[in-house]
């Protein structure tokens, strides 16, 4: 499996990554190398094998549907203090609706 620079740009878009034009070539080569390496999986016989999502033999634990706040009453302020841009308790982003 060999990826073209155009395919790399498409994947980068899906992953919301801005690539510099000079990165495309190296990424195309390296990602193709990685995909070639993982291509070895195709040779494994997995007929009737159930996919394994995680190693634990357990079901998801449930808890009561109540609000928990690990940082206490000042939670909102504490979490917003580390945000790049906030105002009146809200996160600021570029305008999304005209």
């Amino acid at each position, binding site marked *: 499996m060999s990826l073209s620079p155009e395919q790399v740009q498409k994947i980068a878009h899906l992953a*919301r990554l801005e690539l510099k034009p000079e990165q495309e070539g190296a990424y195309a080569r390296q990602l193709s*190398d990685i995909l070639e390496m993982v291509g070895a*999986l195709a040779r494994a016989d997995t007929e009737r*094998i159930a996919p394994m999502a995680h190693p634990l033999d357990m079901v998801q634990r449930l808890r009561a549907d109540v609000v928990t706040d690990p940082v206490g009453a000042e939670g909102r302020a504490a979490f917003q203090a580390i945000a790049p841009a906030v105002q009146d308790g809200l996160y600021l982003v570029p305008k999304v609706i005209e």
Partner: protein
Amino acid sequence: MSAGTRGPGAGSGEALHRLSIRQLAEGLRARRFSSRELAQHFLQRIEAHDKTLNSFVTVTAERALAQAAAADARLAQGAGGPLTGIPIAQKDIFCTQGVKTSCGSRMLDSFVAPYDATIVRKLHAEAGAVMLGKCNMDEFAMGSSNETSWYGPVRNPWDLERVPGGSSGGSVAAVAAGLAPAATATDTGGSIRQPAALTGLTGIKPTYGRVSRYGMVAFASSLDQAGVVAHSAEDAAYVLQAMAGFDPLDSTSVDRPVDDYCAALDRPIEGLRIGLPKEYFAAGLDPACRAAIETAIGQFERLGARICEIRLPHAPLSVPTYYVVAPAEASSNLARYDGVRYGHRADGAKTLEELYKKSRGEGFGAEVQRRIMIGTYVLSHGYYDAYYLKAQKVRRLIYDDFKHAFETVDLVVGPTAQNVAFKLGDKLDDPVAMYLNDIYTIAANLAGIPALSIPCGFVNGLPVGLQLMGNFFDEARLLNAAHQYQLATDWHLRRPHGFE
């Protein structure tokens, strides 16, 4: 205690960094030195050596001295446990309230968590250990050389031109150089064991679910597990004892009592059944490393263990399986870094999409971007079945191999890495060559079983690591076997030149 009554442990003349955690705990209780003196000793060593090694992202001297004072007060009342007053370092992947948690990334260069990770709380607030600082690491724990860190590469104390391994490269370099008695670390595909091997340390990755991951920055959630690096299995047992246990805040935490790791250390290993997978001794393993591994296996035999050959037929598919599963999970986990709620935000974005793209383009380094893109690709429409679903099925085959093996053996033994530490820059532009560093360690993460690496010799003056893998929740047996080996050998006592 006045200065005049100090025992031989105090002052700058005594090599406090050569003592085991048990010896340090005894020294504290005998008042040969205080926790404050201990913290100062290690802080001075960090000051003296870390410009060379670059093993710390942040040194928390003030916090360390305050925690040490609290530990001294606890010890003076005859209270506290085996870690009270013992300095340790934290991998910079664990959230620490009020102290930056960078995860080795520009993305989190300004991130100060508003809460502590559970293991940070357990080790410091509960067990009374003293935090010296936060250790450098590969960016988001993605790497096997500690060269992908935004804060620059870490150097191997055994040879400064070589890598310490990764991703827990800062943790191992700090401990190997005697800048901290032990450090926390994490292991998604070998990030505890491979660097431990490359720096002559003991490093244990516990069973998936044994140690809480609450407050540990996520990489690949079905594989990530926290553990410890230290000089010896005994030291590791003390630290792991304080870390392990159920945590309701982590949905993958297993509610099951924690064994007494320290009490299990002294059991003889007469009759222990150790399996030797021939797949772990195939082409690729350096012959000199292989010889050291085989000598070590002979030592286990002399200690009474019974060695028998086993098969792990799907082990050779571990690396390809991992490089589908781990990037897939990483691409999902790292979607949270959007430049909105915390972390790096690019300037000048005109739209929300541009804000995401620019922030992530600037905030993530090349290896993280590669893995996000691989993950995005294997999860994308048309490729999901061929890659992701296929890898999940092969993962089951790898898991079944181990399940089958543990029906006849207690532990599985093999090399930790194919070779000793390599030169800085050697594999940086060849991701696949870098990925093969973890060829022997990844299977334990895919299966979820515990595994550790112990030093078992030297090749060209560089440490070689031996890997032991155990059945689910068999950490006590792993540490026991490693400890019995270390009672009979002295590889774990060797120190790199210049850091004695």
